[in-house]
């Protein structure tokens, strides 16, 4: 008994942490039920292969009051009648010179049999073949439940093979149709994110394409509606919270589930159109690269001009500065357009509180600039006021995460190519991390790790560069990024960190200077094409770079 208890507890914990969770099978079961009903409609209505009717309006069988012997008597009379007719036809045909030959008849009969059997064969599955008998006809099933804890199963009396319900007229089974492809253009991957996967829309189905029948009707349930990935939770976010921070469901009628059972792609958990998410101060990204911090519940959608998020409950912060498409935040018919801007938006009893943090947002036909706030209701936009010190202390702002614009972790090698240094593998222990990985490394008194971005990178307001590195024998470090328009570097000198230890360096791009004039910082919008971290030091000096990340922190004008 203890073994059974242990087993149950183990399974429960596995489910609670999201490793093995019950799937939502409702759609699949309903589709299979519809298919079986359709299948019944084309099966013979009597004889050995008859399939019992599956759907009755009530729970009572209508065949039981009819005595079997009556049908047997009728069967004998019918059989004699048929025999007579067949004999008569055979006599006529044998005397008709234009009658088909025996071979023709056999071929025709074979073809007829094949045609008749065709629809049923479509639904035969390997699983069914494996089973010794059809569960529909021979399986012992329990009877109706008694109001007890565990009713004992009893055999259902076998249904006489020759007593079959007549087919009833039925509504045609609705075959699920794929939804039409959304017309929204999928956001393109940002050029400054060489390693990030673009949103993967499912391949377009040609119009009128017919789905091929599959072998197993258990898996051929319903074509997945075309999904548009609207947002994703990055790996560091879902790993950080481990359990329960985010809950997701695929529609409002589904149950909430932990995100840990969802498939990960390149470490990301993608959230699709129509899905709902709730979290307490969790961060995620829209597929256009915009950062979303959420304390509440939302539903994801696409929009003809970008992406839309229905704020069902509570607050969110969205940073959509310089993204490739607009983010619309809606709530009970109200709409806030976050174009090149960042804002905190709060829902409260049919109203939206809007606080523009950066750039500008529009609502109710008016623009709200950074440092201003307003309230939107079905009566329109309220007056626009300057924010107060208290507004800046909103929890979503004080705990605001850095928005990742791009990362290079040398696994695989930079898509733009290495300029100096080579890629080497390091164990988790060598990296001081949980997993093995790759680093870019170079040796010597003027060692440097440098690589080109996969396409030029245009800088944003509040942008920072972060680097994890380790050096040995270095006296000075120089970080610089090349600007092709000026044919010069922006950079800064750095005091090397502790010898032989991993350090994380974070520098605002506004702190970089033109390496020639030592004066100008790169203004937002500067195009940069490469990164370099170089040292000057001993002949046996070494530099290792684990990753380089470009992030944006909203600049608050407090």
């Amino acid at each position, binding site marked *: 008994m203890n073994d059974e208890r242990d087993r149950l507890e183990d399974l429960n914990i596995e489910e609670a942490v999201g490793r093995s969770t019950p799937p939502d099978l409702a759609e699949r*079961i309903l589709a299979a039920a519809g298919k079986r009903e359709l299948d019944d409609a084309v099966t013979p209505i009597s004889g050995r292969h008859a399939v019992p009717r599956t759907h009755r309006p009530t729970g009572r069988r209508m065949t039981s009051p009819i005595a079997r012997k009556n049908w047997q008597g009728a069967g004998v009379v019918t059989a004699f009648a048929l025999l007579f007719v067949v004999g008569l036809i055979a006599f006529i045909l044998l005397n008709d010179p234009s009658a088909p030959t025996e071979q023709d008849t056999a071929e025709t009969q074979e073809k007829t049999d094949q045609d008749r059997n065709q629809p049923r064969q479509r639904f035969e599955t390997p699983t069914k073949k494996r089973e010794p008998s059809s569960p529909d006809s021979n399986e012992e099933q329990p009877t109706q439940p008694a109001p007890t804890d565990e009713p004992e199963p009893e055999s259902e009396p076998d249904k006489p093979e020759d007593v079959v319900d007549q087919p009833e007229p039925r509504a045609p089974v609705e075959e699920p149709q794929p939804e039409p492809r959304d017309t929204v253009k999928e956001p393109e991957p940002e050029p400054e994110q060489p390693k990030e996967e673009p949103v993967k829309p499912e391949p377009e189905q040609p119009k009128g394409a017919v789905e091929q029948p599959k072998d197993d009707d258990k898996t051929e349930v319903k074509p997945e509606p075309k999904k548009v990935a609207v947002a994703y939770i990055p790996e560091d976010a879902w790993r950080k919270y481990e359990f329960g921070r985010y809950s997701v469901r695929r529609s409002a009628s589904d149950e909430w589930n932990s995100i840990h059972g969802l498939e990960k792609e390149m470490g990301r958990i993608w959230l699709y159109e129509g899905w709902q998410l709730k979290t307490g101060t969790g961060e995620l990204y829209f597929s256009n690269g915009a950062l979303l911090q959420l304390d509440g519940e939302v539903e994801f959608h696409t929009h003809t001009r970008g992406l839309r998020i229905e704020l069902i409950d509570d607050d969110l912060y969205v940073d959509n500065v310089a993204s490739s498409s607009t983010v619309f935040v809606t709530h009970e018919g109200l709409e806030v357009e976050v174009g090149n801007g960042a804002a905190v938006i709060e829902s409260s009893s049919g109203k939206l509180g809007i606080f523009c943090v950066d750039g500008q947002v529009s609502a109710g036909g008016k623009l709200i600039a950074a440092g201003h706030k307003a309230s939107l209701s079905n009566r329109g936009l309220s007056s626009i006021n300057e924010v107060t010190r208290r507004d800046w202390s909103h929890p979503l702002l004080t705990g605001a995460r850095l928005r990742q614009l791009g990362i290079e972790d040398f696994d695989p090698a930079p898509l733009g190519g290495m300029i100096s240094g080579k890629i080497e593998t390091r164990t988790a222990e060598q990296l001081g991390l949980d997993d093995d990985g790759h680093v870019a490394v170079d040796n010597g008194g003027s060692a440097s790790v440098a690589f080109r971005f996969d396409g030029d990178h245009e800088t944003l307001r509040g942008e920072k560069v972060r680097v994890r590195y380790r050096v040995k024998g270095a006296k000075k470090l120089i970080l610089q990024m090349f600007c092709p328009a000026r044919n010069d570097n922006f950079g800064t000198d750095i005091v090397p960190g502790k010898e032989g230890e991993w350090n994380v360096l974070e520098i605002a791009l506004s702190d970089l200077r033109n390496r020639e004039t030592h004066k100008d910082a790169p203004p937002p919008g500067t195009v940069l094409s490469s990164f370099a971290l170089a040292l000057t030091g001993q002949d046996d000096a070494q530099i290792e770079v684990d990753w380089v990340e470009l992030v944006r922190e909203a600049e608050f004008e407090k």
Partner: protein
Amino acid sequence: MATDHRQELEELVRAHQRGVWRYLRYIGAGNAEADDLTQETFLTVWKQPFEQYDQKATAAYLRQVAKNKFLMLLRAQKRRPEVNDLDAATQLFSEFARDDGGDAHMLALTGCIEALQGKAKQVVRIYYYEGHSRASAATEMQMTEEGIKTLLRRVKDALRECVERKLK
């Protein structure tokens, strides 16, 4: 499928699918098998409509059908059941599942796991979420295998008490 009947089936599935699936997993079905057998269970009862007295009786009836389906599968595959005493296991499961298929229990358990700290939390992540063996978890946590076994036992005891407290 007639709309009313479809709705009845949908309501039945939505109310009981998790309980049936959990039961099938518990008595030894794999994830994919549990998916298929849950489907077969509902299709079978849909073909042979029955009166629903209450949620608990319906859940018990569905479990019985599911058990038969699973036993048929085992026979067909010449497999032996992983659970030695199916009746005792079924009784234990019905205590766990109550009348909601175990949803309340799972909700409480999730809350208890979230509240874990330190090594207890770490071992749950490594052993149950990442699926490491005890030996592998021992290496990961720099403990002996026996130490992991003891830690897991303590964590399960603590979780059991926590869940019982929450369900009271």
